[in-house]
């Protein structure tokens, strides 16, 4: 996983609440067995019309937002399904950070696993950043993960909260399976205890 340290880039304003994962990537594009290549389908129905032509009014079809690395949205971003295709599509498009008042739980977890930083900030601040983003290419926003700060184009620094463990993994680009495998002796011990105490629990074998 690519580490996330600091990012300075164009932010795309997406002033919508409850952006669901079907909107981020519709189900018909989930028939892939790969993680890559989904960026072309990001926000498919918002981005393209029935004939596959771009909808010029959609923000990601406009300059400079075609090159956006940050997305700013409203409440409950990423609600709906558990599909990790949603962060894969964002990442493949080039989005490394989403800022919103809050996120749906599974989507929130999924972003971290893919080196995307989800930042929760109060609605008023998201609205300020949304206004900054609307200024376009000259109004770049910086995200500094180590300092836990978003820097507005006017230089104002805004603090954000993040879980320390997730921050550590993201800053160092660590694979969390590798982290967990360091706890193998404890997992072995748990399993042995469970087999003794809950021996009623069935193992699965299918013939």
């Amino acid at each position, binding site marked *: 996983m690519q580490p996330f340290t600091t990012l300075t880039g164009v932010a795309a304003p997406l002033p919508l609440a409850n952006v669901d994962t079907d909107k981020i990537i519709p*189900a018909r594009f989930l*028939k892939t067995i790969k993680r890559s290549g989904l960026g072309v389908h990001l926000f498919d129905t918002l981005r393209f019309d029935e004939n596959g032509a771009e909808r010029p009014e959609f923000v990601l079809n406009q300059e400079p937002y075609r090159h956006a690395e940050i997305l700013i949205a409203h409440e409950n971003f990423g609600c709906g399904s*558990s599909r990790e295709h949603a962060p894969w599509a964002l990442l493949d498009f080039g989005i490394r950070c989403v800022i919103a008042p809050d996120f749906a739980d599974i989507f929130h977890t999924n972003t971290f696993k893919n080196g995307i930083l989800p930042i929760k900030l109060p609605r008023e601040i998201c609205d300020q950043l949304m206004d900054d983003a609307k200024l376009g290419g000259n109004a770049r926003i910086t995200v500094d993960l180590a300092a836990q700060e978003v820097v507005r184009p006017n230089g104002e620094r805004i603090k954000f909260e993040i879980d320390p463990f997730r921050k550590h993994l993201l800053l160092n680009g660590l694979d969390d399976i590798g982290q967990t495998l360091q706890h193998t002796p404890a997992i072995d011990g748990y399993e042995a205890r469970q087999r003794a105490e809950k021996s009623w629990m069935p*193992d*699965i*074998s299918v013939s």
Partner: protein
Amino acid sequence: MARTLFDKVWDAHVVERLPDGTCVLYIDRHLVHEVTSPQAFEGLRMAGRKLRRPDAHIAVVDHNVATSDRRLPIAEPESRLQVETLEANVAEFGMPYFPLLDERQGIVHIIGPEQGLSLPGMTIVCGDSHTSTHGAMGALAFGIGTSEVEHVMATQTLLQRPAKNFLVEVNGALPVGCTAKDIVLAIIGKIGTAGGTGYVIEYAGDTIRALDMAGRMTVCNMSIEGGARAGMIAPDHVTFDYVRGKPFAPKGEALDRAIAYWKTLPADAGAVYDKHLAIDATTLAPMVTWGTNPEAVIAITGTVPDPAAEADEGKRAQLARMCEYMALTPGQKIADLPIDVVFIGSCTNGRIEDIRAAAAIAKGRHVAPGVRALVVAGSGLVKAQAESEGLDKILLDAGFEWREPGCSMCLGMNPDKLTPGQRSASTSNRNFEGRQGPGGRTHLVSPAMAAAAAVTGRLVDVRELN
């Protein structure tokens, strides 16, 4: 300290608590389907890892499969590839699997409880948000993304932080015509699509207690639509009776020991919840969604809300967009709206009880002209049971289609889809734009309401037919 049901199941699965509060949480059961697993298997392969515990997993194909003749190959190449990839992966990694032609095949959330693979007190995960269904067993069950799927495969654990506790109490006798689906739609209408974010919901109260396991699964299934990652119901004699005799469930003395443990799981007196909601079931009516998320729900006797009455600008725009997409006018009455398609099935309402409810309405009636009505059992065993009760015959005689098990028209990944502009009454769980096919318009309802819509050709109050 007094603990909730969630607290107890959580505590029993903490392998290690890291200094910042993150826990290594042991996972007892992992359910796998073809859509969210290929990249996880690929990740294992690249890292040279194996399944830590093959006997804790069960795989099945459901999302991509056609619900027509099973002996024919899957026509759509990408769908076929996903199914074949799962088959190759389960063979390579030694994961238990119910193949497409096995009678036990079905929707992943139907087969877990049906096979006795989902049991009280377990931690259960799946790369699918409706894993919340299994919480009806008194398990902690939640959806995960593909990276976490790979994590469970490799380590049999997840890195998690505990959720907060949300108690939803439903009391009072359920009015005639109302079902578990109406209860959960009403709850989502009250808390909103993000009302449960960060929480595990425990459903309690005498109305919930009075539900059978199918109804409890319907309620827990839609917890995710209220933003909660999981929903749970304390196990009781209804749960134990359900488990008894299921193929993989413990038997005899082992079952006695299991039940003794399960009886310790309900919340202690005085357990503290972070959030509460009380619902008076006697005030409920059959519900129907009018908009494009499950919170946009009204009673069948209601009218489409007026966006202009909404103070918040963003919400106003969203409501207006919903009216436009759904081709509805503010203030319009929802009953009598003509529909094109009826879908009865999915992990929300694809169990035998749901098919019985639909057949009870269909009996002696006929699907309205111009309406296509599909009934899709949630599993091969549900289908067989329905056929042994003659329900297939009643439904076929009434002009319904009787199809092979799978996710079907719940989502637009297989051949069962809405075409642009078509309007459906559906027993599934999501009415997002394009969910049942691009441009499709979905109204979520209970199985009885869906069957009533099929035979009248419009959204109708099922109580008018009784």
